[in-house]
């Protein structure tokens, strides 16, 4: 995962729930591409396709609330979205995004000043967002959690851990 993420912003309001992000009928899929095809389709025909021309989602409070479905994070990645910046996240979405390798940032200061189409740059390692000549800071994730994200998600993290264990067993 890259530490610097730059791109155009699409802006959502508060309480975007995981049913709206990906309807329950598509939870039979777990792959990014197929989930991405149906992401946000409840918001109208062509809405998901429109989102593909943006790189970063910016949202208000409680993004990803509702169902614990992990595919909400997967579907957003399936749209080609590189990161989500919100005033706050629902805890299940927060965990799922990390476990799915989708960078997420809590930065309430950005929300009121950013507009659709603006370009922002997120520096995950430094905990900073650059936008329109201004700099907004956000608290960095705990190291143990960031490690999961950096490896591309929990499955990759587990794989690395298991390989490590096997290696140690061979050496030991």
């Amino acid at each position, binding site marked *: 995962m890259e530490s610097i993420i730059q791109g155009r912003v699409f802006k959502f309001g508060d309480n975007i729930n995981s*049913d709206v992000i990906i309807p329950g009928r598509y939870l039979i899929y777990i792959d990014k591409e197929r989930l991405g095809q149906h992401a946000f389709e409840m918001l109208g025909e062509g809405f998901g396709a429109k989102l593909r021309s943006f790189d970063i989602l910016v949202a208000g409070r409680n993004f990803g*609330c*509702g169902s*614990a479905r992990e595919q909400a994070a997967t579907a957003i990645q399936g749209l080609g979205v590189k990161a989500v910046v919100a005033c706050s996240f629902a805890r299940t979405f927060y965990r799922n995004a990390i*476990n*799915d390798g989708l960078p997420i940032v809590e930065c309430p200061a950005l929300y009121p000043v950013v507009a659709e189409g603006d370009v922002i740059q997120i520096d995950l390692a430094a905990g900073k967002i650059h936008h329109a000549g201004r700099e907004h800071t956000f608290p960095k994730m705990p190291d*143990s*959690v960031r490690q999961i994200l950096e490896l591309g998600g929990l499955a990759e993290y587990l794989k690395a*851990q298991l390989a490590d264990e096997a290696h140690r067993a061979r050496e030991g």
Partner: protein
Amino acid sequence: MTIAEKILSAKSGRSAVTPGEIVEAYPDLVMSHTATWRSASVMQRVGATRLYDPDRLAIVLDHISPAKTEKYAADQQASRNFARQYGVGKFYDVDAGIAHLVLMEAGHVAPGDLIVGTDSHCTIYGSLGALGTGIGYTEVTSVWITGRLWMKVPESVRITLDGRFSTGVYSKDLMLYLIGTLGADGCSYKSVEFYGNAIPALSVSERMTMANLAMEMGVKCAFVPPDLRTAEYLQARLTDARPYQPVYADTDAVYLEQVDVNLAQLEPMVACPHEVQNTKPIGEVAGTHIDQAFLGSCANAKYEDLVVAAGILKGRRVHPGVRLIVTPGSKKIMLEAMNSGVLQTLLEAGGMVTNPGCGACAGDGGMLADGEVCLSTANRNFLGRMGSGKSSIYLSSPATLAASAIEGAIADPRGFF
């Protein structure tokens, strides 16, 4: 320490923890439902071949039951094969019902337990004094393999309930009132503890509705501290004679916030489309036309809920313009309702009864067409959750649902007692 702090410190081998701290906790139970095959596929993908402890797994195939497409059938087959291959004893197939209710009925949930699962409404386990919270399917795989997960110790909120519900008002109305007042993220990342002189009178079923709906204010977990009613419920169910130690908060526990509610002042509440926090007192929505009434879900399809609805529907008829769909929460509930005549009452009144499970709340039958309106006893009314993006879902108690099914429009149940 608060209840959440005590359970998280016990499960992470610590003597004390403070809010904000991250601990490595070892859950007593990992629940996976319909999502089991996804976790099993991750296990394969990462190359793991051993579980930390098969006895800590519970699998319930609830969301789409029985399989309605070949894809669901294949997914369920993969889940069954996984359970067999790894010797998962706590396995419940498509006939059992909704995971949460099935696990509590079967005695797999005890006070002080830490339980994670592939469902946000795992908070319901707090009705028995256990810390339950939702995680995704990949994280379930991780807990299967390693036995643990990182958890942030939440801050706690104390909600004190005094007085008694008036006739026709239930814990569902209380929760809709709280969600409407505090908001969809009013208790985000928080642990909620319920206290007050109203608690002893509340049945375990009512408490389940409370801990379940608490999720809709963003909680990480919610608790009704165990009492005599809890002990009575558990005595009949903890068949494995598992010893348990109820966990209570210390008298000097620190709470972020205190909320007081007098139950006597509450009236029937309805959540309007398309957010649960969009709640209104019944008087403001009465008369809203409905096409479908869904009595189901882990929030309100317990035996007591069916009894309340049947009490109102007995000797009355469901409005000809309304489809009343009754989906009992579990097979045990269905059997009890069959033996007591409750199912007969619901059927004779004009309702239909489906197999137990998540049913229409999870899109398993009972879908809505463009422009249709459903009143539901479930816990979510999100846009398109039950079908068309041009349909609407309202949420209420089973009593309001029964009254509304008769009227053909959202109706105040207090006129039916």
